[in-house]
Protein backbone atom coordinates (compact mmCIF):
# COMPACT_ATOMS: atom_id res chain seq x y z
CA UNK A 1 0.00 0.00 0.00
CA UNK A 2 1.19 3.49 -0.71
CA UNK A 3 -0.66 6.63 0.08
CA UNK A 4 -0.20 7.71 -3.49
CA UNK A 5 -1.92 4.70 -4.88
CA UNK A 6 -4.81 4.67 -2.50
CA UNK A 7 -6.43 7.74 -1.18
CA UNK A 8 -6.55 6.26 2.25
CA UNK A 9 -7.64 9.14 4.44
CA UNK A 10 -8.21 6.93 7.43
CA UNK A 11 -4.72 5.45 7.28
CA UNK A 12 -3.20 8.89 6.77
CA UNK A 13 -5.19 10.22 9.70
CA UNK A 14 -3.97 7.39 11.91
CA UNK A 15 -0.35 8.01 10.99
CA UNK A 16 -0.75 11.77 11.36
CA UNK A 17 -2.22 11.32 14.83
CA UNK A 18 0.50 8.79 15.67
CA UNK A 19 3.25 11.22 14.68
CA UNK A 20 1.59 14.06 16.57
CA UNK A 21 1.33 11.98 19.73
CA UNK A 22 -2.43 12.31 19.70
CA UNK A 23 -3.24 8.62 20.21
CA UNK A 24 -3.96 6.56 23.27
CA UNK A 25 -1.09 4.34 24.37
CA UNK A 26 -2.85 1.15 23.23
CA UNK A 27 -3.41 2.51 19.74
CA UNK A 28 0.14 3.79 19.56
CA UNK A 29 1.39 0.34 20.39
CA UNK A 30 -0.84 -1.18 17.73
CA UNK A 31 0.48 1.13 15.04
CA UNK A 32 4.07 0.56 16.14
CA UNK A 33 3.48 -3.14 15.70
CA UNK A 34 2.00 -2.58 12.24
CA UNK A 35 4.94 -0.44 11.24
CA UNK A 36 7.30 -3.25 12.12
CA UNK A 37 5.54 -5.68 9.81
CA UNK A 38 4.08 -3.48 7.03
CA UNK A 39 6.74 -2.04 4.72
CA UNK A 40 4.27 0.13 2.82
CA UNK A 41 2.96 1.66 6.01
CA UNK A 42 6.53 2.22 7.18
CA UNK A 43 7.36 3.95 3.90
CA UNK A 44 4.36 6.20 4.37
CA UNK A 45 5.40 6.89 7.95
CA UNK A 46 8.91 7.83 6.84
CA UNK A 47 7.57 10.09 4.11
CA UNK A 48 5.44 11.97 6.63
CA UNK A 49 8.40 12.40 8.94
CA UNK A 50 10.40 13.75 6.03
CA UNK A 51 7.60 16.15 5.15
CA UNK A 52 7.57 17.45 8.70
CA UNK A 53 11.34 17.90 8.59
CA UNK A 54 11.05 19.80 5.33
CA UNK A 55 8.49 22.14 6.83
CA UNK A 56 10.45 22.67 10.04
CA UNK A 57 13.62 23.26 8.06
CA UNK A 58 11.95 25.91 5.93
CA UNK A 59 11.23 27.81 9.16
CA UNK A 60 14.94 28.44 9.48
CA UNK A 61 14.96 30.44 6.30
CA UNK A 62 13.80 33.90 7.31
CA UNK A 63 14.66 37.30 5.88
CA UNK A 64 17.55 39.10 7.45
CA UNK A 65 16.23 41.65 9.91
CA UNK A 66 18.14 44.53 11.39
CA UNK A 67 16.21 44.73 14.64
CA UNK A 68 17.53 48.13 15.61
CA UNK A 69 16.57 49.59 12.24
CA UNK A 70 13.18 47.88 12.28
CA UNK A 71 12.30 49.24 15.72
CA UNK A 72 13.50 52.72 14.75
CA UNK A 73 11.44 52.60 11.54
CA UNK A 74 8.36 51.50 13.49
CA UNK A 75 8.83 54.43 15.85
CA UNK A 76 9.31 56.82 12.93
CA UNK A 77 6.06 55.60 11.35
CA UNK A 78 4.20 56.08 14.63
CA UNK A 79 5.61 59.57 14.99
CA UNK A 80 4.52 60.41 11.45
CA UNK A 81 1.09 59.05 12.28
CA UNK A 82 0.15 61.74 14.82
CA UNK A 83 0.68 64.85 12.69
CA UNK A 84 -1.00 63.10 9.78
CA UNK A 85 -3.97 62.34 12.01
CA UNK A 86 -4.12 65.92 13.15
CA UNK A 87 -3.89 67.14 9.56
CA UNK A 88 -6.76 64.86 8.66
CA UNK A 89 -8.86 66.19 11.53
CA UNK A 90 -7.95 69.77 10.61
CA UNK A 91 -8.95 69.18 6.96
CA UNK A 92 -12.34 67.93 8.08
CA UNK A 93 -12.99 70.66 10.59
CA UNK A 94 -11.35 73.66 8.91
CA UNK A 95 -14.35 74.75 6.84
CA UNK A 96 -16.95 74.54 9.64
CA UNK A 97 -14.54 76.19 12.07
CA UNK A 98 -13.83 78.99 9.61
CA UNK A 99 -17.55 79.54 9.06
CA UNK A 100 -18.19 79.58 12.80
CA UNK A 101 -15.32 82.04 13.30
CA UNK A 102 -16.66 84.39 10.63
CA UNK A 103 -20.12 84.23 12.17
CA UNK A 104 -18.79 84.91 15.64
CA UNK A 105 -16.74 87.80 14.30
CA UNK A 106 -19.76 89.27 12.53
CA UNK A 107 -21.96 88.99 15.63
CA UNK A 108 -19.28 90.55 17.83
CA UNK A 109 -18.64 93.33 15.34
CA UNK A 110 -22.38 93.96 15.06
CA UNK A 111 -22.76 94.14 18.81
CA UNK A 112 -19.82 96.51 19.14
CA UNK A 113 -21.05 98.64 16.26
CA UNK A 114 -24.57 98.85 17.67
CA UNK A 115 -23.15 100.15 20.96
CA UNK A 116 -20.85 102.67 19.39
CA UNK A 117 -22.00 106.34 19.70
CA UNK A 118 -22.75 107.64 16.24
CA UNK A 119 -23.28 104.18 14.96
CA UNK A 120 -26.59 102.50 15.37
CA UNK A 121 -26.57 102.94 19.10
CA UNK A 122 -30.06 104.25 19.09
CA UNK A 123 -31.29 101.95 16.46
CA UNK A 124 -33.49 99.10 17.50
CA UNK A 125 -35.62 96.57 15.81
CA UNK A 126 -38.98 95.93 17.28
CA UNK A 127 -42.21 94.23 16.51
CA UNK A 128 -44.74 96.97 16.36
CA UNK A 129 -48.21 97.65 15.20
CA UNK A 130 -47.58 99.57 12.04
CA UNK A 131 -50.14 101.79 10.51
CA UNK A 132 -49.73 102.08 6.81
CA UNK A 133 -51.08 105.16 5.24
CA UNK A 134 -51.69 104.56 1.60
CA UNK A 135 -52.60 108.13 0.93
CA UNK A 136 -55.84 110.11 0.91
CA UNK A 137 -59.11 108.50 0.02
CA UNK A 138 -61.29 109.90 -2.67
CA UNK A 139 -63.88 110.88 -0.06
CA UNK A 140 -61.28 112.89 1.83
CA UNK A 141 -60.34 110.33 4.48
CA UNK A 142 -56.95 108.51 4.83
CA UNK A 143 -56.45 105.06 3.38
CA UNK A 144 -54.84 103.09 6.30
CA UNK A 145 -53.93 99.53 7.04
CA UNK A 146 -52.51 98.09 10.26
CA UNK A 147 -50.12 95.23 10.66
CA UNK A 148 -47.52 93.83 13.07
CA UNK A 149 -44.11 94.13 11.57
CA UNK A 150 -40.44 94.21 12.43
CA UNK A 151 -39.53 97.82 12.18
CA UNK A 152 -36.16 99.39 12.52
CA UNK A 153 -36.55 102.54 14.47
CA UNK A 154 -33.93 105.18 14.73
CA UNK A 155 -34.23 107.31 17.85
CA UNK A 156 -31.34 109.36 16.61
CA UNK A 157 -33.41 110.71 13.81
CA UNK A 158 -36.98 110.28 14.83
CA UNK A 159 -38.18 112.68 12.30
CA UNK A 160 -36.32 111.28 9.41
CA UNK A 161 -37.47 108.42 7.37
CA UNK A 162 -36.91 105.08 9.00
CA UNK A 163 -35.32 102.70 6.63
CA UNK A 164 -37.48 99.69 6.26
CA UNK A 165 -35.78 97.77 3.53
CA UNK A 166 -33.86 97.92 0.32
CA UNK A 167 -34.72 100.67 -2.09
CA UNK A 168 -36.79 98.59 -4.37
CA UNK A 169 -39.93 100.60 -3.84
CA UNK A 170 -42.65 100.09 -6.29
CA UNK A 171 -44.54 102.51 -4.14
CA UNK A 172 -43.25 104.43 -1.22
CA UNK A 173 -45.36 104.06 1.86
CA UNK A 174 -45.51 106.17 4.92
CA UNK A 175 -45.35 104.14 8.07
CA UNK A 176 -46.06 105.07 11.60
CA UNK A 177 -44.80 103.08 14.50
CA UNK A 178 -47.30 103.69 17.18
CA UNK A 179 -46.54 103.66 20.89
CA UNK A 180 -42.84 103.31 20.45
CA UNK A 181 -40.40 105.69 22.02
CA UNK A 182 -41.62 109.03 23.10
CA UNK A 183 -43.39 109.97 19.95
CA UNK A 184 -44.69 108.32 16.85
CA UNK A 185 -42.07 107.81 14.23
CA UNK A 186 -42.74 108.22 10.60
CA UNK A 187 -40.66 106.75 7.86
CA UNK A 188 -40.60 105.32 4.44
CA UNK A 189 -40.80 101.72 3.53
CA UNK A 190 -40.94 99.56 0.49
CA UNK A 191 -44.19 97.73 0.14
CA UNK A 192 -42.37 94.84 -1.45
CA UNK A 193 -39.78 94.60 1.29
CA UNK A 194 -41.81 91.95 3.01
CA UNK A 195 -42.39 93.74 6.23
CA UNK A 196 -46.08 94.14 5.80
Amino acid at each position, binding site marked *: MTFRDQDNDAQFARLDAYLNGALEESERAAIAQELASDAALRREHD*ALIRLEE*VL*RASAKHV*PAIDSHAFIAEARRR*RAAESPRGLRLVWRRLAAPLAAAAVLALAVTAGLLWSRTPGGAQDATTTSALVTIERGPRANGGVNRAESHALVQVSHAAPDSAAEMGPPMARRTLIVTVAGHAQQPIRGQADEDAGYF
Partner: protein
Amino acid sequence: MSDSVNTQSDAADAAEAARQRGLEDAQWVADARTGNQDAFDRLVERYHRRAVSVAYRLLGNAEDARDAAQDAFLRAYRNLATLEDPRRFGGWLMRIVTNLSLNLRRARGRAANPAGDELLMGEERLRTPSGASLSQPGDNPETGELAIAIRRALDELPEKQRVALVLFSIEGLPQKEVAEIMNCTVELVKWNVFQARKALRRALADHLDGD
Protein backbone atom coordinates in the same frame (compact mmCIF):
# COMPACT_ATOMS: atom_id res chain seq x y z
CA MET B 1 8.10 7.42 32.84
CA SER B 2 10.98 9.83 33.23
CA ASP B 3 10.37 11.20 29.73
CA SER B 4 6.73 11.72 30.58
CA VAL B 5 7.64 13.64 33.73
CA ASN B 6 10.09 15.78 31.78
CA THR B 7 7.51 16.48 29.10
CA GLN B 8 4.98 17.55 31.70
CA SER B 9 7.59 19.70 33.39
CA ASP B 10 8.54 21.32 30.08
CA ALA B 11 4.90 22.02 29.30
CA ALA B 12 4.42 23.60 32.71
CA ASP B 13 7.53 25.73 32.23
CA ALA B 14 6.34 26.81 28.79
CA ALA B 15 2.92 27.70 30.17
CA GLU B 16 4.46 29.74 32.98
CA ALA B 17 6.77 31.51 30.52
CA ALA B 18 3.78 32.31 28.30
CA ARG B 19 1.88 33.63 31.32
CA GLN B 20 4.77 35.88 32.30
CA ARG B 21 5.08 37.09 28.73
CA GLY B 22 1.38 37.89 28.66
CA LEU B 23 1.64 39.89 31.87
CA GLU B 24 4.58 41.86 30.49
CA ASP B 25 2.73 42.48 27.26
CA ALA B 26 -0.29 43.74 29.19
CA GLN B 27 1.89 46.18 31.13
CA TRP B 28 3.56 47.47 27.97
CA VAL B 29 0.21 47.82 26.24
CA ALA B 30 -1.13 49.77 29.21
CA ASP B 31 1.91 52.05 29.16
CA ALA B 32 1.76 52.46 25.38
CA ARG B 33 -1.88 53.49 25.67
CA THR B 34 -0.78 56.44 27.75
CA GLY B 35 1.59 57.47 24.96
CA ASN B 36 4.72 55.78 26.25
CA GLN B 37 6.64 55.09 23.03
CA ASP B 38 9.35 53.10 24.80
CA ALA B 39 6.71 50.62 25.94
CA PHE B 40 5.51 50.11 22.37
CA ASP B 41 9.14 49.75 21.25
CA ARG B 42 9.41 46.79 23.61
CA LEU B 43 6.39 45.17 21.98
CA VAL B 44 7.95 45.74 18.56
CA GLU B 45 11.22 44.31 19.77
CA ARG B 46 9.53 41.21 21.13
CA TYR B 47 7.36 40.39 18.13
CA HIS B 48 9.01 41.84 15.04
CA ARG B 49 10.90 38.70 14.04
CA ARG B 50 7.83 36.51 14.19
CA ALA B 51 5.76 39.17 12.40
CA VAL B 52 8.24 39.37 9.53
CA SER B 53 8.60 35.60 9.41
CA VAL B 54 4.84 34.94 9.21
CA ALA B 55 4.41 37.63 6.56
CA TYR B 56 7.32 36.14 4.66
CA ARG B 57 5.75 32.65 4.62
CA LEU B 58 2.55 34.10 3.22
CA LEU B 59 4.10 36.58 0.78
CA GLY B 60 7.34 34.95 -0.23
CA ASN B 61 9.16 38.25 -0.50
CA ALA B 62 11.39 39.72 2.18
CA GLU B 63 10.78 43.37 1.35
CA ASP B 64 7.00 42.91 1.24
CA ALA B 65 7.19 40.94 4.48
CA ARG B 66 9.09 43.68 6.33
CA ASP B 67 6.67 46.26 5.00
CA ALA B 68 3.62 44.20 5.96
CA ALA B 69 5.06 43.73 9.44
CA GLN B 70 5.64 47.48 9.81
CA ASP B 71 2.08 48.14 8.65
CA ALA B 72 0.82 45.61 11.15
CA PHE B 73 2.61 47.32 14.04
CA LEU B 74 1.25 50.68 12.94
CA ARG B 75 -2.29 49.31 12.79
CA ALA B 76 -1.84 47.70 16.15
CA TYR B 77 -0.66 51.02 17.56
CA ARG B 78 -3.63 52.86 16.07
CA ASN B 79 -6.09 50.32 17.43
CA LEU B 80 -4.44 49.60 20.74
CA ALA B 81 -7.50 50.89 22.57
CA THR B 82 -9.65 48.18 21.00
CA LEU B 83 -7.52 45.29 22.27
CA GLU B 84 -9.74 43.67 24.85
CA ASP B 85 -7.16 41.44 26.51
CA PRO B 86 -3.73 43.11 26.46
CA ARG B 87 -2.11 39.84 27.55
CA ARG B 88 -2.92 38.52 24.09
CA PHE B 89 -1.14 41.26 22.19
CA GLY B 90 1.09 38.75 20.38
CA GLY B 91 -1.77 36.70 18.95
CA TRP B 92 -3.68 39.84 18.09
CA LEU B 93 -0.68 41.24 16.24
CA MET B 94 -0.16 38.00 14.31
CA ARG B 95 -3.77 38.13 13.25
CA ILE B 96 -3.19 41.61 11.85
CA VAL B 97 0.00 40.43 10.13
CA THR B 98 -1.82 37.45 8.63
CA ASN B 99 -4.76 39.50 7.39
CA LEU B 100 -2.55 42.20 5.91
CA SER B 101 -0.38 39.62 4.17
CA LEU B 102 -3.35 37.78 2.74
CA ASN B 103 -4.89 41.04 1.54
CA LEU B 104 -1.63 42.02 -0.10
CA ARG B 105 -1.33 38.61 -1.67
CA ARG B 106 -4.87 38.81 -3.05
CA ALA B 107 -4.32 42.36 -4.26
CA ARG B 108 -1.25 41.58 -6.28
CA GLY B 109 -2.83 38.45 -7.72
CA ARG B 110 -1.31 35.07 -8.13
CA ALA B 111 -0.45 35.52 -11.80
CA ALA B 112 1.88 38.37 -11.05
CA ASN B 113 2.83 36.95 -7.70
CA PRO B 114 6.36 35.80 -7.34
CA ALA B 115 5.40 34.38 -3.94
CA GLY B 116 7.96 32.03 -2.69
CA ASP B 117 10.59 32.91 -5.23
CA GLU B 118 12.81 34.39 -2.57
CA LEU B 119 12.23 31.34 -0.48
CA LEU B 120 14.32 29.57 -3.04
CA MET B 121 17.22 31.92 -2.73
CA GLY B 122 19.71 30.44 -0.41
CA GLU B 123 17.91 27.14 -0.77
CA GLU B 124 21.07 25.49 0.43
CA ARG B 125 19.99 26.58 3.88
CA LEU B 126 16.94 24.34 3.61
CA ARG B 127 18.23 21.39 5.47
CA THR B 128 16.63 18.78 7.60
CA PRO B 129 17.30 18.90 11.34
CA SER B 130 19.81 16.13 10.81
CA GLY B 131 21.73 18.44 8.49
CA ALA B 132 20.85 16.73 5.22
CA SER B 133 20.13 19.09 2.38
CA LEU B 134 16.62 18.96 1.06
CA SER B 135 17.97 19.21 -2.43
CA GLN B 136 18.04 16.10 -4.50
CA PRO B 137 21.28 14.99 -6.10
CA GLY B 138 21.80 16.99 -9.26
CA ASP B 139 19.53 19.82 -8.15
CA ASN B 140 20.64 23.35 -8.77
CA PRO B 141 21.47 24.53 -5.24
CA GLU B 142 19.70 27.82 -5.85
CA THR B 143 16.53 26.33 -7.22
CA GLY B 144 16.38 22.77 -5.99
CA GLU B 145 13.49 20.71 -7.26
CA LEU B 146 12.19 19.98 -3.80
CA ALA B 147 12.30 23.63 -2.81
CA ILE B 148 10.37 24.55 -5.93
CA ALA B 149 7.92 21.75 -5.31
CA ILE B 150 7.37 22.88 -1.70
CA ARG B 151 6.80 26.44 -2.77
CA ARG B 152 4.34 25.41 -5.46
CA ALA B 153 2.54 23.02 -3.18
CA LEU B 154 2.21 25.68 -0.47
CA ASP B 155 1.03 28.14 -3.07
CA GLU B 156 -1.66 25.77 -4.24
CA LEU B 157 -3.11 25.24 -0.79
CA PRO B 158 -6.40 26.91 0.09
CA GLU B 159 -5.78 30.05 2.13
CA LYS B 160 -6.85 28.67 5.50
CA GLN B 161 -4.85 25.49 5.10
CA ARG B 162 -1.81 27.51 4.12
CA VAL B 163 -2.15 29.84 7.11
CA ALA B 164 -2.74 26.97 9.52
CA LEU B 165 0.24 25.06 8.19
CA VAL B 166 2.52 28.10 8.23
CA LEU B 167 1.60 29.06 11.78
CA PHE B 168 1.54 25.58 13.26
CA SER B 169 3.95 23.40 11.30
CA ILE B 170 6.47 26.04 10.20
CA GLU B 171 6.31 28.75 12.86
CA GLY B 172 5.62 26.22 15.57
CA LEU B 173 2.86 28.16 17.31
CA PRO B 174 0.55 26.23 19.64
CA GLN B 175 -2.75 25.19 18.07
CA LYS B 176 -4.66 27.30 20.57
CA GLU B 177 -2.77 30.41 19.51
CA VAL B 178 -3.23 29.55 15.84
CA ALA B 179 -6.96 29.24 16.50
CA GLU B 180 -6.99 32.71 18.05
CA ILE B 181 -5.09 34.16 15.14
CA MET B 182 -7.37 32.48 12.61
CA ASN B 183 -10.44 33.28 14.68
CA CYS B 184 -11.65 29.69 14.61
CA THR B 185 -11.73 26.62 16.82
CA VAL B 186 -8.75 24.46 17.64
CA GLU B 187 -10.52 21.58 15.92
CA LEU B 188 -10.71 23.59 12.71
CA VAL B 189 -7.00 24.37 12.97
CA LYS B 190 -6.27 20.65 13.33
CA TRP B 191 -8.47 19.86 10.35
CA ASN B 192 -6.80 22.53 8.19
CA VAL B 193 -3.30 21.37 9.14
CA PHE B 194 -4.29 17.79 8.44
CA GLN B 195 -5.70 18.65 5.03
CA ALA B 196 -2.65 20.75 4.20
CA ARG B 197 -0.24 17.96 5.14
CA LYS B 198 -2.25 15.51 3.11
CA ALA B 199 -2.16 17.80 0.08
CA LEU B 200 1.59 18.37 0.47
CA ARG B 201 2.16 14.66 0.88
CA ARG B 202 0.44 14.07 -2.44
CA ALA B 203 2.11 16.97 -4.20
CA LEU B 204 5.57 16.03 -2.96
CA ALA B 205 5.20 12.29 -3.31
CA ASP B 206 8.03 12.03 -5.81
CA HIS B 207 10.36 13.81 -3.42
CA LEU B 208 9.26 12.27 -0.15
CA ASP B 209 9.09 8.61 -1.10
CA GLY B 210 12.50 7.26 -0.41
CA ASP B 211 12.65 4.65 -3.14
